[in-house]
């Protein structure tokens, strides 16, 4: 059973949702944030897909209100997900099965002004 190394990127406001200590750890105070995390590969009938990743992020990385990121099994509308340079809607969306060294980016459009 292998572990998956996933690179996560947060930009355009999404980085502000991440816990402060994680941002400082990454050496970033403001601006785009890049992290790598390792997730275990699950068995075939319960694969590690983006949905699992979202739950992981919600539980471990988001500060204050987790529902501002992920609510009722859905990603907050207005946050775009890019998997290896493609819109996740072109891939399988939340069902996309993660592969080793995938790059998942989160771009927020939820800001006023």
């Amino acid at each position: 059973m292998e572990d998956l190394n996933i690179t996560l990127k947060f930009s355009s406001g999404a980085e502000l949702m991440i816990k402060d200590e994680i941002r400082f750890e990454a050496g970033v105070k403001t601006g785009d944030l890049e992290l790598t995390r390792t997730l275990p590969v699950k068995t075939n009938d319960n694969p590690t897909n983006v949905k699992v990743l979202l739950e992981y992020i919600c539980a471990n990385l988001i500060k204050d209100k987790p529902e501002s990121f992920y609510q009722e099994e859905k990603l907050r509308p207005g946050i775009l997900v890019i998997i290896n340079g493609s819109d996740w809607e072109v891939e399988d969306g939340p069902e996309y099965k993660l592969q080793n060294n995938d790059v998942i980016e989160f771009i927020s459009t939820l800001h006023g002004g």
Partner: protein
Amino acid sequence: MKTLNERYDYGLDLFLLSIDEGIAGYRDDSLETVKRNKDQYSLPLLIVSYEQLYGWSMDSIVETVGRKNNCTFCGVFRRQALDRGALMLDLDHIVTGHNADDVAETILMNIFRGDLPRLGRCTDIATAGDGYTVRSKPFKYAYEKEIVMYAYFKRLDYFSTECTYSPNAYRGYAREFLKDLEAVRPSAILDIIHSGEAMRVAHDVQMPVAAQCERCGYISSNAVCKACTLLEGLERGVPKLGIARSAKADLQALPVVAKNRGASVQRVHFDKLWENAKRMREERIANADSWCNKPSCVCVDQNNTESSHACMQ
């Protein structure tokens, strides 16, 4: 615009016009970005600030009135600031970046508040504004998501800090609702715009008539335009003037000669701005050497039949 202008040879002179509302931590970021854009796209940039035009920055306004209704001040001032800036530059046309999400949110907001005059105007893709500078929104049908994805793939430099005062904005409610609708049925945004465009005001409804503000000359549906009303309220210490109905009574209760509280500046009257702009426009036409009488040409027919100038080639 820049790309299209060059690719299709529109022959436009493009400028960047930016408004500095004086919001620390928000507008400073975006102004830095605009300055970079100026170099990236090689376009001249003019920045006008509320401080310079009205004597009040948004931060000082919020200090005076509190954290509610801030968008009212900012929006009213920005609209006038853009028109003032356009006249200073002698522009023919202002293009704003409003996208489909913005227009749909505005339609929803106007329905929620029952603002009929605005509802009738907000779906126009181009408006005559004050009659001098036309204003349009070419992204009216482009989803915000499409624009963000385009910027992502083209690696365009843009800012995305949230306005410090936006969490209290009414638009936030419309936005949340719209985003939830989009998640269920993505065509909802365009559908709302379509519905908004299809709405017609019954002809026996009395609509406000465009007139001129008696103080600054700006276009207004009342004797005194909203900007002047808000500024008067700020200066005279009745900050809810123009926002709450009761405020008018408070103003009347003040002694006739009230001491100015704020550091207001003498606002330039619009008649003067129009005069200057007209003069610049006449000079521009007189000096241009590429006028012809081809009906399809963008330049103005001026009885110039010389074949040596640019658009004849």
